[in-house]
């Protein structure tokens, strides 16, 4: 589902072909849901808000589709530029309302209602990784997020981020190295505590 979207499918969807639109949405949605969840985290312990934002992104993409012109840029760049805007809007709204604490603070908090043990362990691992990602420079974090959570290729990420694929590869390696370092020290902290 992360392979480059068929340009023909995009073109037909842009012309309001209902089946193409539906197929396109089916391809896009999982990545968008993961992207919004990764960016926004569990707000109030659940992904509800993130999923709502993903839904808004889907609608925004469909609405903007007729204006999309294939100019050699991957379609993913078009989609994730919209997604980044929507997520930023949601974050600003959250800060403005101050009803929601920032993502990292939520992630550091212990789960109030843990499910079955395995689920809890997995969630805890994911949560820890989220916290580690929060300590990366913003560009590295976004690159790893787009590469792993969404599943975009280095080339696609390069277009989304406005940098060369080679620069993406260097930055992602630096990000991974940083994560490895952080994970090592974080583990030490956990075992020492």
């Amino acid at each position, binding site marked *: 589902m992360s392979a480059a979207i068929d340009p023909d499918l995009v073109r037909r969807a842009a012309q309001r072909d209902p089946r193409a639109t539906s197929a396109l*949405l089916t391809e896009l949605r999982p990545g968008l849901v993961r992207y919004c969840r990764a960016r926004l985290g569990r707000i109030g312990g659940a992904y509800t808000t993130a999923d709502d934002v993903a839904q808004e992104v889907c609608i925004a993409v469909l609405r903007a589709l007729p204006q999309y012109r294939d100019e050699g840029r991957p379609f993913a760049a078009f989609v994730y530029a919209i997604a980044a805007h929507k997520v930023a809007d949601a974050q600003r709204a959250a800060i403005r309302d101050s009803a929601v604490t920032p993502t990292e603070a939520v992630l550091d908090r212990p789960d109030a209602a843990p499910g079955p043990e395995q689920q809890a362990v997995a969630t805890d691992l994911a949560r820890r990784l989220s916290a580690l990602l929060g300590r990366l420079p913003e560009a590295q974090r976004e690159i790893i997020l787009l590469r792993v959570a969404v599943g975009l290729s*280095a080339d696609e990420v390069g277009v989304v981020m406005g940098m060369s694929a080679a620069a993406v590869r260097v930055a992602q390696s630096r990000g991974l190295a940083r994560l490895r370092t952080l994970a090592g020290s974080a583990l030490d902290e956990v075992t020492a505590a």
Partner: protein
Amino acid sequence: MSTTNPPDGLPTIAADDALLDALGQGTLPADADEVAEMLAVWRADLDPSDEAFEEVDTAPVVVLKPRRFARVIMSAAAGAILLTGLGVATYQSEPGGPLWPITEVVYPQQAEIRAAENAIALAGAALTAGNRDEAARQLDEADAHVARVDDEPAARRLRGEIDTLRKRLAAASPSTPAPHPSPSTQPTPSTSPGTAANPAPSAPVSPSPSPEPSSRPGLLPSLLPGLPLPTLPPLLGN
């Protein structure tokens, strides 16, 4: 493992790139380190896994450590199922509902039918409440939506419902003529615009009662269309 050297060497960059490619596909290479495992778990956690119903066999994932990462497969399958669920929910969404904007785009035909049904229901409610203007407005809107429905049986059903409501609307109308008269055009005596002198005698309007049409249906059928004739002669006299 936690070396502090920045891994800018080409082999590391290529290996990291391959690792991220694999993780991005929801898979984990056999020689993955701890951070890679955490990334894989993190990605699986991001997958919409809440709606796990059925058909768990659609996971397009190659997982090298199946036991540990069965969860990844499950999540991918659940993601596919969620999509199906959303598709159905979108298909069945109602005007004004949270999924309606998507329905309008993805299922335009279904959206027209839903919108027509919605307008018909509102017209019925308005009629019941005695608000005839609103009912007429909603029925016009329903007509507009039905005109865009390609599915002929559905369109026929909707037109039937609209007709029924139009009849109720006409019946509920006080004194004012029915907004949608039936095509049986009865020429009214008011077709005398120039003659102010003599109002046409209203007597001819009630012509001779047709003599028992049921008696001899087979004989002389051509006589029946002659009914409107009596209204003509007095007008021409001027």
